[in-house]
């Protein structure tokens, strides 16, 4: 026979306290694409992991995530569906750019700035600007390097624009695709705290490329040491944004796989920077041999084409 106390409404403890009292209890967490369960994931762990919450930015993003979860309901063949990816104001875009240039240690870029409102404006136009900046800066830098030489005839090198465009857009879209696929695959094997949607990964990559725009402009300076220092500096900044974003997503995985993933991300980022520097910007010291060779190659090409 139930007592009066049993029939009274009982307030259940917070899940964290329950878990602290009984650490071996089995817990179930539902991994849905909606943002709300992710907060519960954070709380179902041991309460000692505060840096997780900070990294996840869960403290003040609940409301926005709840509100934001109701959008994106238009079918994908309508125009409104794509408008949801451009639902940003000027100050939001500027904030995200600022967040990518000044990474706050311990803050996750996705949780802090994107907050389930990934936009395609930033990635697309930052990539476009970067393409033209690299092409124009490379052209200007080559012009200044070869300026005094009598054999030098200025060429606009317009073909390099299409090469730059292909490289940068491929990097900004294919690498996130591969990374997203990899994270989804690992998620199916190991329960991770965080998982990002494809658009959030594209967003992080796009905004992390912003630092290369002023770097490319400064690469006009024809000093090797200056160029390498600039490249290291920008690589550290944008690399740290990427690392701080993706480390929580792979941390729970096998240690080696986690390190390999983060290492690959940084390596690819470095490869992009080094490749752009090497291809679009002539080296400042190699003067005469470099100016003779292109003519030689040019003549052989013309002969062969006939």
């Amino acid at each position, binding site marked *: 026979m139930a007592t009066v106390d049993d029939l009274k409404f009982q307030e259940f403890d917070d899940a964290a306290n329950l878990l602290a009292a009984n650490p071996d209890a089995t817990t179930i967490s539902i991994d849905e694409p909606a943002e709300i369960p992710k907060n519960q994931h954070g709380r179902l762990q041991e309460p000692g992991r505060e840096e997780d919450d900070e990294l996840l930015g869960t403290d003040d993003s609940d409301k926005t995530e709840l509100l934001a979860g109701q959008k994106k309901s238009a079918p994908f063949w309508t125009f409104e569906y794509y408008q949801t990816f*451009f639902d940003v104001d*000027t100050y939001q875009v500027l904030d995200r750019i600022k967040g990518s240039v000044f990474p706050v240690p311990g803050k996750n870029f996705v949780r802090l700035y994107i907050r389930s409102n990934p936009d395609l*404006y930033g990635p697309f136009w930052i990539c476009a600007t970067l393409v*033209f900046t690299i092409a124009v800066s490379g052209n200007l830098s080559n012009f200044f390097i070869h300026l005094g030489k009598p054999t030098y005839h200025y060429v*606009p090198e317009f073909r390099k624009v299409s090469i730059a465009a292909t490289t940068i857009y491929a990097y900004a879209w294919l690498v996130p695709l591969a990374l997203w696929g990899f994270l989804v695959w690992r998620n199916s094997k190991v329960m991770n705290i965080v998982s990002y949607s494809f658009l959030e990964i594209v967003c992080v990559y796009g905004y992390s490329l912003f630092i290369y725009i002023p770097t490319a402009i400064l690469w006009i300076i024809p000093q090797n040491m200056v160029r390498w220092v600039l490249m290291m500096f920008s690589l550290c900044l944008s690399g740290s944004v990427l690392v701080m974003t993706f480390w929580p997503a792979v941390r729970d995985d096998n240690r080696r796989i986690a390190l390999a993933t983060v290492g690959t991300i940084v390596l690819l980022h470095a490869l992009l920077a080094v490749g752009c520097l090497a291809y679009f910007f002539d080296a400042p010291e190699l003067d005469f041999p470099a100016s003779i060779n292109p003519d030689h190659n040019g003549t052989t090409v013309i002969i062969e084409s006939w």
Partner: protein
Amino acid sequence: MAAAEGSGAAGPLFAGLADVSISEDIPVEGEITVPVGSRSPDEDYSTLDEPVRDTIMRDLKAVGKKFVHVMYPKKSSALLRDWDLWGPLVLCVSLALMLQGGSADSKDDGGPQFAEVFVIIWFGAVVITLNSKLLGGTISFFQSLCVLGYCVLPLTVAMLVCRLVLLAGSGTISFIIRLIVVVAMFGWSTLASTAFLADSQPPNRKALVVYPIFLFYFVISWMILTFTPQ
């Protein structure tokens, strides 16, 4: 037969009506006229019968009026209301033709080819239009293309001036003249198109829409400035 039956059945119904008469002191006045179609204001006149010269001149005048609007941008809606793409086509083709004959030591290092200029202008204009519509702009697709295309006019003028200056010589002074002209025309193009397009955007996203336009005209200006004849 049925009619006879009907009238027979209706007979007692309407019997009383035969006695109704209109008294003579109620005046019955009025006019009954039927407006026979005179169709005096001839709004939709048929353009099929007019001479071809009139048709062409009307379109040319519309294009010319838009050119004037671009050179002296005031906030008028003529450019937006009656869009046409003849002007942009003419400007794009002439700019691409003038950018031909760039230096071509080898195919890879020369200036942009005709197709590249054409694609950059049209693809760039389409992308900017899509961008402004996705950000919530109220302008229609072809109106935006029309404005962006017409605002290439100052840069086409700059290209013409550059080619003339390059005929005279290609030293430092000619470069400085070309630089000043191209920068001035680039500013004019950007301001003209912004004057027409910025109003149709939500106010907190104006900068997001203006920046791609700036980038677009910057790229075209760069192509004009770096043109070196062979």
